[in-house]
């Protein structure tokens, strides 16, 4: 066993003129949960499909479990995929769906001489297969559902069957392409938790595709943010959220206030001048000239809490949106700069209204300077 | 509708039971009992086990072919046609090998022979050829010399039939004008047969029905086009039923059909059906059996000719179709009512007025074009 289950090595994929994946490098440690996150069309699915073996890279190499697998076909790779549409075989029962992979593998050790033709002519249903199917169905909390038809299942149950079918062959890597995309919000949240638990329990490597940043933050050990075919940033959820490497990442993950201006170092740190206002920002080695800094709405303090903070300004509330658990305020600084501030409503009634004057402030450490 | 020359086409396959104990040659095949029952000869040649026949629609009583099949152990496949032209073109399209035995009328025998589509009949294989009346053998202008190409099956005339329930006022003698009279508009039919129908029109105009003059043919064509609105349809088949069921009258048809209707409606010594050849005269014809050029079962074809030349069989057929028979030996089995009916067996003075349709060679083209135009006018 190598340290890395999956390694992408300068992988590029072109469809005709379209550059779908552009020189992507990453490695996934055995047993980790990696999420590919990015907007629609950024190449997430294509990346996953190259790992699964449905697409061949135009350039670069895909390694699984230490071996270069570029010219192995899907059925020769030790990965399993959970499709967004589930892709359950509609003409088979739950049990048959889950058993399919085992039967196709011809269950090594059992009836070893069976050739492809044999398997073609009949599917086998030995005791061992039955056993493993039933165990896997228990794992996904569908015990005893073997004989159900697929169309008798709810969306969430189908999701679990798809999972069971992928898990039963005990793949080295499980690939999941927006597996929860078709579920409604409530179910989706539940399944997020369950999936994460399952992954921790089984210790299987997960490569998970989503365009939902909240999902990514909640579930992943590591997140690979993709944009337009290339990898923008690779890191843990906290790294990605709190230390975004680019404006794209800052903007794509969570909400943020971006302020563009001129960066300069001063005695006791660094500042950014924008529109006549000087903001204190953390020092950033690469920064120079026109850059930006990002400050999250929940990191901005209002009123008394803003007192004594290095960045502190008079502002006016120009819009408010009530969200129940929090209030979202649009405040305008004297220089016309608009900032969004999130205020958790920790006590009933506590609220600001449009037109009110208010002090805003934040710690420079809570902001990030972005050079690209 | 006015279209295809062959209503009744496509025919029906009568056939079935190979009773034949498949055995050696000659009469070893088939059932001697059946042969004895009908007085059929044993044959001294190998008949083979199948025969493809191309025959006019409804030209023998059902069961006839089965007797042959049983007697000689031959499986017979029969297809039907409704006009000589249809039969001719079917052979052209599919090859003469499709059928062994066909039943062309007089002029068509000549055409087929000249086109090399039939072969000579081997009289040695027909032990009862002499059952035929001499006149049908000696006076067969259509049968090319030398040799013998065809064997007469039935003969008859073409004329007009009517049903007095529909048209009480028709009285013989009448002219072909009958079929052009407005009075019967919408209830008449003419034969769906190029030579017959153009022939009738020619006769009405006082020309020979074998005219080769373009102008005469044109004139006959115009007359037929003029007549068209008065007709319900052109048809050569089940004219007996049409008369009998009062679906059409008067009807241009072949004599036998008229008499089928006559006898079917015959009660208390009378029938509403009448038939006559109009006074200008009309067609006398003889349908014959001929063996195709590429026949695969030449012997079986000869066996079948022998079969229908048999007096009893031939009479059985004649008594069903009500056509006059050319078979002298058969006459003793024919119903007297038919034999004595001058409309079935016309007296000589009537016969003199009648003409055979003849092979008029290249002029056939003129007829074909006229016929196409009539149908599509």
């Amino acid at each position, binding site marked *: 066993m190598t340290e890395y289950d999956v390694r992408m090595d300068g992988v590029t994929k072109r469809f005709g003129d379209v550059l779908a994946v552009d020189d992507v490098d990453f490695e996934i440690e055995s047993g980790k949960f990696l999420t590919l996150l990015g907007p629609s069309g950024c190449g997430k699915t294509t990346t996953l499909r190259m790992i*699964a*073996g*449905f697409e061949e890279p135009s350039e670069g190499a895909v390694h699984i479990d230490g071996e270069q697998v570029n010219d192995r*076909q*899907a*059925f020769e790779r030790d*990965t*399993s*995929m959970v*499709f967004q*549409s589930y*892709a*359950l*075989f509609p*003409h088979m029962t739950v049990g048959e769906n889950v058993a*399919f*992979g085992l039967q*196709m*593998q011809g269950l090594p050790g059992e009836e070893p001489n069976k050739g*492809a033709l044999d*398997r*073609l002519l009949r*599917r086998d249903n030995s005791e061992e297969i039955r056993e493993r199917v039933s165990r896997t169905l228990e794992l996904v909390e569908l015990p005893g559902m073997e004989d159900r038809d697929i169309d008798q299942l709810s969306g969430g149950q189908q999701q679990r069957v798809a999972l069971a*079918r*992928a898990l039963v*062959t005990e793949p080295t890597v499980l690939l999941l392409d927006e597996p929860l995309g078709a579920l409604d919000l409530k179910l989706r949240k539940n399944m997020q938790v369950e999936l994460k638990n399952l992954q921790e329990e089984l210790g299987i490597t997960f490569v998970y595709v989503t365009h939902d940043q909240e999902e990514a933050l909640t579930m992943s050990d590591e997140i690979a943010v993709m944009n337009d075919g290339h990898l923008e940033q690779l890191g843990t959820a906290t790294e990605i959220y709190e230390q975004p490497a680019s404006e794209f990442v800052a903007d794509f993950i969570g909400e943020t206030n971006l302020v563009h201006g001129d960066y300069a170092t001063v005695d006791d740190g660094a500042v950014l001048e924008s529109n006549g206002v000087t903001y204190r920002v953390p020092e950033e080695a690469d920064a120079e000239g026109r850059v930006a800094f990002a400050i999250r709405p929940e990191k901005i303090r209002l009123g008394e809490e803003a007192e004594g903070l290095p960045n502190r300004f008079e502002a006016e509330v120009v819009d408010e949106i009530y969200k129940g658990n929090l209030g979202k305020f649009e405040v305008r600084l004297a220089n016309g700069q608009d900032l969004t501030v999130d205020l958790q409503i920790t006590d009933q009634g506590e609220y600001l209204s449009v037109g009110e004057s208010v002090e805003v402030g934040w710690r420079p450490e809570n902001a990030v300077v972005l050079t690209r | 509708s006015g279209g295809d020359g062959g*209503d*009744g*086409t*496509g*025919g*029906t*396959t*009568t*056939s*079935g039971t190979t009773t034949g104990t498949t055995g050696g040659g000659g009469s070893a095949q088939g059932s001697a009992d059946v042969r004895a029952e009908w007085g059929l000869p044993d044959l001294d040649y190998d008949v083979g086990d199948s025969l*493809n026949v*191309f025959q006019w*629609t*409804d030209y023998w009583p*059902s*069961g006839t072919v089965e007797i042959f099949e049983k007697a000689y152990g031959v499986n017979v*496949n*029969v*297809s*039907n046609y*409704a006009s000589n032209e249809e039969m001719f073109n079917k052979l052209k*399209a*599919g*090859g003469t*090998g*499709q*059928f062994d035995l066909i039943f062309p009328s007089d002029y068509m025998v000549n055409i087929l022979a000249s086109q090399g589509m039939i072969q000579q009949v081997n009289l040695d294989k027909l032990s009862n050829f002499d059952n035929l009346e001499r006149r049908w053998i000696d006076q067969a202008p259509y049968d090319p010399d030398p040799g013998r190409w065809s064997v007469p099956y039935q003969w008859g005339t073409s004329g007009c039939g009517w049903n007095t329930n529909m048209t009480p006022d028709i009285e013989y003698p009448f002219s072909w004008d009958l079929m052009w009279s407005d009075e019967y508009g919408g209830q008449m039919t003419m034969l769906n047969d190029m030579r017959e129908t153009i022939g009738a029109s020619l006769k009405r105009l006082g020309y020979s029905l074998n005219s080769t003059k373009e102008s005469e043919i044109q004139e006959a064509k115009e007359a037929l086009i003029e007549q068209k609105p008065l007709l319900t349809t052109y048809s050569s*088949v*089940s004219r007996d*039923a*049409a008369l*009998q*069921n009062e*679906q059409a009258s008067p009807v241009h048809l072949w004599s036998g059909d008229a008499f089928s209707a006559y006898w079917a409606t015959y009660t208390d010594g009378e029938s509403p059906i009448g038939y006559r050849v109009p006074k200008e005269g009309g067609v006398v014809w003889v349908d014959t059996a001929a063996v195709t050029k590429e026949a695969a079962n030449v012997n079986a074809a000869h066996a079948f000719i022998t079969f229908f030349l048999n007096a009893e069989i031939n009479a059985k057929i004649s008594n069903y179709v009500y056509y006059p028979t050319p078979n002298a030996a058969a006459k003793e089995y024919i119903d007297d009512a038919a034999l004595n009916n001058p409309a079935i067996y016309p007296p000589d003075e009537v016969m003199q007025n009648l003409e055979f349709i003849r092979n008029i060679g290249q002029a056939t083209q003129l007829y074909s074009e006229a016929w196409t135009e009539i149908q599509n006018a």
Partner: protein
Amino acid sequence: MSSVTVSWFKRTRSRFIQRFGGVALGLEAIALYLFLYIPIVVMIALSFNDSQTAIVWKGFTTEWYSALLDGRAIARVDPQAAWIALKNSLYIAAVTVVVSTTLGTMLALALDRYDFPGRSLLQGVTFMPLIIPSIVMGISLLLFFNFVGLTQGIGTAIIGHVAFDISYVTVIVLARLSSFDRTLEEAAMDLGARELETFRWVTFPIIKPGVIAGALLAFAMSFDDFVVTFFIIGNQNTLPIFFFGMVRQGISPGVNVIATVILLATFALIALAQKVAGLTW
């Protein structure tokens, strides 16, 4: 403004449609169903008519059916010939279905799965037999067989039937394939199935209803074809050809009886096919 100003005309018209539209359409539909079924019912009823003429009701009899069972002719219609024609029809249809379903399904797969130069041409040629008048197809085959010197018969009929049935099967299977989710195949491959296994265990079972539907239609088209067969079958008969000859001779109780039997036989056959196919779907 308080409410939309609507013309009296429109309001009344709309109310009228609301109130009577459904009923009027319903009546029209009933009339059309009657139009479709009355002739057939009348035809069947008259097959029990105690009359030689078969049109005017003269009383009830099962005489014609006993005649049929005894193999006796019913007013010139020879049951023996009908059986042979039926046998030919079944034989031709059976062979045609097997060949055309196989070839048509394969062609549909090729058209669905591959993009290649000439694809739209091939697709066009595939659809052509469906839109070309039958008579053109019949004539061209007749001339072709004549040209190459093939003797016409059951064999040439099968060739012709396959030529048009391929199109029916292809079109239907293509429709099924267009809704086929290709990720199912990927899922199978991902689970270790090779191409043939994937086809055997996933692709085929899923498109099977389409294939069966195509086969059923192909059967019906072959079994019921008259025009093409008429020109290319030589001296043989199929049921439609036999029947065409009968019908041209006019209306007779025998034709009614045979027609009724054909009708019921076809329905029984279809019911059976649906049942068998239904079980396998």
